[in-house]
């Protein structure tokens, strides 16, 4: 099989350097994804590999020959290109379009033989488009057209297939179908597939190796493990949570928009939460400029993962373990430093009932404390402590914890207090009830 080796290439448009020192070595059957923001040189790299833009420095070896010493027609016998959103001026039938892939194998004057037709039809059968052969290419849907174009590439009988954003403009079902097809080409036909992609989740799921580009340079290259939050931050300047798709064991990336421009407040909010009930609140409070702490959270709890992603100071306990005295005391230390405390609604068991004691501590300390009562009426169902938790909740209410119905109401209340705080420079401990009187109407218990 033919190997593709790109070594230290620099490419220019006129005198502008577009890509610099790019290397890429592929093995038979490898699916390589090129990722990077717009203008990072992905398409230029692909053009350079596809014998279209000769690099000023470096070599591109296909088999044992530098492609720029080969004739275009000889390169086309080994390497096929699916370029970006190709427009077709003439309406050819799908079969005619696929037959054009036989071009490099035909001599002048030669009309395609039965063999060429058979190869074209095999390619169409492989991509599941044989039934479209007599339809005009201009009448096909985007997904169908893309599969016809890939069929044409396959009719070239290439060993290397290059694709520029083959899934851009396609719906999600067609995207998966195209990617499945490309993966099959790698696995069954042992093709080397090099594709430019925009969707890093799609690339992470299908590609064997990745190249991350920024400003024409490689930021990272390797298997899908290089899709770390840090690397993605480097190339796209966005915050992401990188998880693992437990079904495919591939990275799964959730992009977030974090408001880094929010004015910082000198207020600290401590959240008593668990089981994911505090995650969205953490993000919103950070976006609003608060300092946030949380606890006690078990390791591997969703809230703990969020907190560690958002770099929030927390008190933790070992996974699946009841809150120890040490962790509880650490939690109380955090609460002591907080300007506000929030208790979210989450299920209570003997393991985490100490968190309600922490909330009682906060109320006793005179720290304005809120409880999100979203499903308070369900508390009976959320209480796995034979009523102990309910008792403590009742006690909290008796002691004057402020109950709000949901997160928007809570944020409104907090911002209202924060403004007051900003006006007085300092927020003196005061009876919670007086605060409630000033809250917006819908926040009142």
């Amino acid at each position: 099989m033919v190997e593709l080796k790109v070594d230290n290439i620099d490419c220019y448009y006129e005198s502008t350097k577009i890509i610099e020192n790019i290397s890429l070595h592929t093995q038979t059957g490898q699916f390589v994804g090129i990722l990077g923001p717009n203008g990072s040189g992905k398409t230029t790299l692909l053009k350079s590999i596809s014998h279209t833009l000769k690099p000023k420095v470096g070599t591109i070896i296909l088999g044992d020959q530098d492609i720029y010493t080969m004739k275009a027609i000889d390169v086309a016998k080994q390497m096929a290109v699916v370029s970006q959103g190709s427009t077709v001026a003439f309406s050819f039938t799908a079969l005619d379009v696929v037959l054009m892939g036989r071009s490099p194998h035909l001599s002048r004057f030669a009309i395609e033989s039965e063999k060429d037709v058979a190869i074209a039809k095999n390619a169409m059968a492989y991509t599941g488009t044989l039934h479209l052969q007599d339809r005009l290419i201009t009448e096909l849907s985007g997904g169908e057209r893309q599969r016809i174009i890939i069929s044409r590439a396959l009719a070239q009988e290439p060993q290397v297939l290059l694709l520029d954003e083959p899934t851009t403009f396609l719906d999600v079902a067609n995207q998966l179908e195209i990617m499945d097809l490309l993966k099959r080409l790698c696995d069954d036909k042992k093709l080397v597939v090099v594709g430019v992609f925009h969707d890093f989740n799609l690339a992470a799921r299908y590609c064997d190796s990745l190249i991350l580009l920024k400003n024409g340079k490689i930021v990272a290259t390797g298997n899908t493990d290089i899709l770390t939050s840090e690397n993605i931050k480097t190339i796209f300047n966005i915050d992401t949570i990188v998880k693992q798709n437990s079904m495919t064991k591939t990275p799964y990336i959730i992009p977030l928009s974090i408001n880094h421009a929010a004015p910082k407040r000198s207020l600290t909010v401590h959240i008593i939460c668990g089981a994911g009930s505090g995650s969205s609140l953490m993000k919103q409070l950070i976006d609003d400029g608060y300092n946030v702490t949380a606890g006690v959270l078990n390791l591997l709890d969703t809230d703990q993962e969020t907190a560690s992603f958002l770099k929030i100071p927390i008190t933790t306990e070992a996974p699946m373990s009841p809150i120890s005295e040490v962790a509880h005391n650490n939690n109380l230390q955090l609460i002591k430093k907080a300007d506000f405390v929030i208790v979210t609604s989450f299920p209570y068991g003997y393991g985490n009932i100490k968190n309600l004691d922490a909330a009682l501590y906060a109320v006793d300390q005179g720290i304005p404390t809120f409880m999100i009562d979203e499903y308070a009426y369900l508390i009976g169902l959320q209480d796995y402590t034979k009523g102990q938790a309910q008792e403590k909740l009742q006690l909290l209410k008796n002691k004057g914890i402020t109950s709000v119905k949901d997160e928007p109401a809570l944020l409104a209340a907090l911002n209202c207090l924060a403004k007051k705080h900003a006006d007085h420079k300092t927020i003196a401990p005061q009876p919670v009830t007086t605060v409630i009187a000033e809250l917006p109407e819908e926040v009142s218990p």
Partner: protein
Amino acid sequence: MSSVADLKQLYKKDKKRKTLGLLSIFIFIIVAVVVSISFGAGSPGFSEAANVVLSKLFPFLNIAPEPMLTQKIILDLRLPRIVLALIAGAGLAASGATMQGVLRNPLVSSYILGISAAAGFGAALAIVFGVGVITSVAGSLVIINAFVFSMLAILLVCGIARLRSMNTETVILGGVAVGYLFSALLSLIQYIAPEHQAVRSVVFWLMGGLNTATWNSIMFVLPMVVLTFVLMFSQSWDINVLSMGEDVAKSLGVNSKRVLTITMVLEALATAAIIAFTGVIGFICLISPHIARSFIGNDHRFLIPGSALVGAGLLLCSDTVARLVFVPTELPVGIITSLLGVPFFIYILLTRRKQNWR
């Protein structure tokens, strides 16, 4: 999904449809030839014409010879005119199909690439001032001038296009520019021409006509048209690939710049050779490919010969009408090609099912 055998059948059926289409134009042309040879300003009709042609083709049949005048009308007036109409129509239409395909533009014709204007300028130069590139051959000044200036135009276009990069845009823009240049020069000649008669001749030449057809002109035009046609046809697969876009063609190993240059030179040679003798007959090369496309499709291996047949039929038909409408005088064929061709073209535009241009 249907079986592979069924699909093969379908594929063959498609080819059959194209072959059938080509065959029907062929029959139409034969009918047109028969009609054209049987009617005209002179008295000879169908039977006389048949006698003359048959006795010439098959001397052993011992057909009673027609009078000399009849023979002269058929063999030296009507027949060369028919043959030239067929050759010219075929050559112009094949060039049009090739250029529209290569430049991926449905509006391309020899007008657009400046050839017609340059030929007109060359002809006017000869008619008005008697100035020519080669003056030694008597009576052929207009023809040689028209041919030489046509080639000059296409060389200019190629040169302009090559200065940037040889692609469809630069060729079309270069062609339009060169066309305007020669139109301006042509107007200038007409404006400063000392004699009215000369200006009238120029105008008449520009309208085009086959009335000057002789076997001598055919001896020059036929080899040119055959040669360029074969060479254009040899590019037809590459033109197919090129119509998918220049990037795609490149990735399939087709050198678009080379194909573009070759076809442009071929188109210029064919067109220049024809219009040097006939004057400007522009519309045929624009419309014939569109008519052919409507039943043949876009595969240039069929489209180029198909367009040639359509062009041949269309020009012969137009010329016959031009000859017969106001017997014994005749109209310039250029007027008739447009008058006949445009309604037919619009009819095809409105009734075709397939959308051939996106």
